[in-house]
């Protein structure tokens, strides 16, 4: 298989398969959650569950000052790589073109050299996160194979993308092909690992805020 044939395959059937697994898998995961149901609450409410839920969905993004001090490493590196991933995925023009193809609408991107700098910072943050997970006693107790697998499939696209952009390591069609393949790996694992938190955390936060809001507490 030549480089170009490989690139055409990852852009073609492989991407179709990955899209299907990602979308179907996420929907199944969401239904697995919702169809478990929830008992109605007969206590007299003090506040609004709906308002509480909506509030926590957004507000939980910001830590309280005490927690920020205590868990500063986790919070800061977490913020850095999440924002980094957001910038790379949604504000880099070649990626915006993919969304344009899927949604029919695109949006302006950042200059590519800025995204390049963000990528380097993101890789550093991801490495820091891994080292922390390997060394911190709490994380060592909690972590299992899945945590490291998810780290790898998240970091691989960032690194291969950086290499493809800088055309380092192999011929450009091969580099782009490997990058897209690594993204497809991420896509197929999304619904079946903790990566699904990208979709389910809004639900978890909503329930948290709703339970609290019913009692008049802002969580």
């Amino acid at each position, binding site marked *: 298989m030549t480089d170009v044939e490989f690139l055409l395959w990852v852009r073609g059937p492989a991407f179709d398969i990955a899209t299907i697994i990602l979308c179907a898998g996420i929907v199944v995961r969401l239904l697995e959650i919702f169809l478990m149901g929830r008992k109605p609450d007969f206590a007299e409410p003090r506040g609004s569950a709906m308002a509480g839920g909506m509030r926590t969905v957004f507000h939980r993004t910001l830590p309280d000052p005490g927690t920020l001090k205590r868990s500063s490493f986790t919070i800061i590196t977490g913020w850095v790589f999440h924002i980094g991933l957001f910038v790379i995925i949604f504000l880099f023009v070649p990626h915006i073109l993919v969304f344009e193809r899927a949604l029919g609408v695109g949006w302006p991107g950042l200059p590519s050299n800025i995204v390049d700098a963000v990528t380097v910072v993101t890789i550093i943050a991801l490495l820091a996160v891994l080292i922390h997970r390997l060394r911190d006693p*709490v994380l060592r107790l909690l972590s299992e194979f899945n945590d490291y697998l998810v780290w790898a499939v998240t970091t691989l696209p960032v690194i291969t993308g950086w290499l493809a952009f800088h055309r380092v390591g192999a011929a450009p069609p091969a580099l782009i092909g490997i990058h897209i393949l690594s993204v497809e790996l991420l896509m197929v694992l999304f619904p079946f690992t903790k990566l699904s938190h990208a979709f389910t955390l809004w639900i978890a936060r909503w329930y948290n805020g709703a*339970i609290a809001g019913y*009692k008049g507490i802002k*969580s």
Partner: protein
Amino acid sequence: MSGPSFQRGYDALMEQIDAPTAAFFSSCVHCGMCAEACLFFTETGDPKYTPIHKLEPLRKVWKQEYTFWGKLAKSLGISKPLTDQDLTDWETLVYDSCTMCGRCSMVCPVGNDLAYMIRKLREGMAVSGHAPPGLVGATRRAINIGSPMGVKLPALQAQIRSVEADTGLKVPVDVENADYMLLLSSMEIMNFPEFIGAVAKIFDKTGVSWTISSEAFEATNSGIQIGVSDIAAELVQRIVDAAEKLKVKNVISPECGHAYMAIRWEGPNLVGKPFSFKVIHILELLDELRSQGRLKLKDKVDSRLTYHDPCQIGRRGGVMEQPRHLLSELARDFVEMPEAGQMNWCCGAGGGVSSNERADDLRLTAFQRKKSQLDQIKVDGLVSACSNCRIHIEDGLEHYHMDLPVLSLTETLAEHLAD
């Protein structure tokens, strides 16, 4: 099938898992931030006290019963199913080192309500025979005698007589059509009977129509603490029956943390329908009286005071502003602890921990968190609204050789009530 068994526990866990639980376990990314929010971890440094780790048995049941791949893995024998040994190993994590204070639920970045899930996990632990002996004893006493501490009606009547003698006021018992029926925790009856006097004084001055029921006066709900909803329901039903028999409009939850959670928020759900009366916390009522201008103080407390939010009343109960309104009237020099309010640190004794003798050492170690909060401010008195917190804080202060009076908000208000 009678008696505890692993199967009963497993079935109980299967019943407990719901959509929020599924959302929570789906979202956990193993970030470890819940550990740094839990006083049992911060004061021991032992990773096993990480809240999400405490929930591992529940997570296993969710995974292997309520997810497609988890169920597949279990039926193919690829994954390890939950065993009775797991529950044995987890007993101290679920009971000794957790008060269901809910601080972890406030901190989790993906929004997991871990305390909510601990409550559910206890349902499985208890009926499989894995609850702490101390708590089992308290629960049996609560059902058989009517109080986890074994306080019977004659003991209460003795305290009432003593209070009437001290205050010169009548404590109304079994008065029909009173507006408010007061519940009392055994802790208050036995250790802080001044509370009853304080309430009598205040209600007399403010013209509140109230009563105590001789058939159901116990506020504490051991069923909530041990985590058996059927038992908790039975205890709540006694209160419901008494309230309906006396045809009262409101039931007052006293200065006791879990009592408020039990009657106000879990109560109607335990008995399966809404109450025909309202439930109000004593602090809510006092604040109402204050805002109506009926609660008048003759003077203020001069010494420097701070307030400890009992977890089940504040963060998990929703009564946080009211004590502060009251303290603004009562205290001349009031200062908040660092991280007060809804991020307050638990005293370490709630949720059944103080009934669990096995957990004494751990409880006192965890108390260092509260101590360090107090060390950061120099106060002359600590006010709270939960007698369990109060007794444990006194215990802890003594253990660490700290001299600091611990006051009940209701009692202190009564002391400064205008004539």
